[in-house]
């Protein structure tokens, strides 16, 4: 049985912002339509030796190497907790090839409260390699494909018709001087909003279901993302602030967001859509 993407709220956390399972006591967790895990690889990944954090006006450059203990360990430690969360779980996977992607997604099928897989595509991947990876990850769970920001406008349309149910955006990459060298890393923060809106709009115009992300810090930003065509919005550094998403949920419009339901085998009555 294959399920559709369903969200009770268009607010999501971006992968890497709330851990492998959320910390206890996050009283705003229920504002999210789903909890997205940190990126998980098949095998353990050590942190990058040149990890760095460099603030700039309106954002940060962050390079960590996507440290994670590997899928088996994560499932042992967190799957039971996922089952009891008040929001659905989307598991973010990073795979080195289609076979590995298939091996990983198989382990997620049937896990309680796991409602989707988000597959991170590596930077500079070719459309053919991306399609192969997406096909490998195809499983019973809806598949959200996280596109490299710089290639999103090209890859999204190229992957239409693939098993991807929707597309999300990885943070753009950048360079900044720091620690006596030019440091490379992901860019996060409010300064990215204009670029993010542009990419979201171009994907939406191309007919791609897209989850926006990048620089959303207030209700106006959220509404702009939805107006640009995003079906939902991922939050990043905002969640590391002291207020979390604050009262962002109050800015969610009554309609104009969410994914169309296409499958007959729904877990949720259609009447619940977008509530």
């Amino acid at each position, binding site marked *: 049985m294959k399920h559709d993407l369903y969200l009770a709220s268009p607010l999501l956390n971006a992968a*890497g*912002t*709330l*851990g*492998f399972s959320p*910390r*206890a*006591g*996050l009283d705003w967790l229920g504002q999210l339509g789903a909890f997205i895990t*940190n990126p998980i690889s098949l095998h353990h990944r*050590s*942190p990058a030796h040149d*990890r*760095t*954090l460099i*603030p700039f006006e*309106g*954002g*940060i450059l*962050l390079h*960590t*190497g*996507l*440290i994670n203990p590997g899928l088996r360990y994560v499932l042992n430690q967190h799957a039971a907790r996922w089952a009891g969360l008040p929001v659905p779980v989307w598991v973010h996977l990073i795979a080195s090839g289609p076979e590995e992607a298939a091996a990983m997604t198989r382990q997620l099928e049937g896990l309680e409260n796991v409602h989707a897989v988000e597959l991170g595509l590596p930077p500079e991947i070719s459309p053919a390699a991306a399609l192969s990876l997406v096909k490998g990850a195809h499983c019973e769970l809806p598949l959200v494909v996280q596109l490299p920001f710089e290639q999103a406008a090209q890859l999204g349309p190229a992957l239409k018709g693939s098993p991807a149910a929707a597309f999300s955006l990885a943070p753009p990459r950048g360079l900044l001087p720091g620690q006596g060298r030019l440091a490379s890393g992901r860019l*996060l*923060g*409010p300064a990215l909003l204009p670029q993010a809106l542009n990419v979201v709009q171009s994907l939406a115009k191309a007919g791609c279901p897209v989850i926006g992300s990048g620089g959303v*810090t207030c209700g106006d930003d959220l509404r702009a993302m939805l107006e640009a065509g995003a079906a939902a919005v991922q939050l990043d*550094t905002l*969640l*590391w*602030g*002291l*207020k979390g998403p604050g009262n962002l949920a109050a800015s969610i419009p009554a309609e104009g967001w969410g994914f169309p339901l296409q499958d007959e085998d729904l877990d949720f009555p259609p009447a619940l859509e977008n509530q």
Partner: protein
Amino acid sequence: MHTWTARLIEIWEENGARVGLLECPADHRPSAGRCLLGAAREGPPPVLPHLLFPGGLLPEGLVLAPGLPLSWQPGIELALRGPFGSGFHLPPKARHVLLAAPQHSPRRLLPLIPLALAQRSEVTLVCHPDFLAALSHPLPPLVEAIPPEALPEALDWADYLAADCPAGLPHLLTEWRGSGQALISVPMPCGNLADCGACAVNTRGGWKLACKDGPVFDLRDLA
């Protein structure tokens, strides 16, 4: 993940760095080496909250160690989260306590002094004279302050070492085989919310996260 608020009573400079005094309820005060995240309650929020360490205790409140942002002014209300992380654990049987901040302000080690004196330990502080002279309040008379050049001799004397060396631990300290701990200075952008990995520290037991397992680590565990 409790968030609370407190007023910043006073700000002063010590050797060019901004230090503050926070009106802080006793049950929210971080112990030595543990940290808080803080941001001004009013105005646009920073991209990330600021990492704050205790730098001493005065009758009026908690001293925040050097590094306060320029935008903060006396009287502002701060939103705060924490304390989090693992701080210094002074062994109850330690009799010769050595606090070593040879390269910068000793502020983050000062909260250990009253604890050590309360258990009748002798305390020696290794610190550059410029930083010592900049401290707003004098050290207790029972604490001996010595310059960094005297560190080797002090290590022979100590039975517990607490070190704070943001630029990296000198070999002299990493090779020391006594009981000791070091406060590791790494960025902690997620503030223990995400296991983001930015604060990963390589230890003999594998990779640890400073925001969760540290930022104070046993010297013998540091690889």
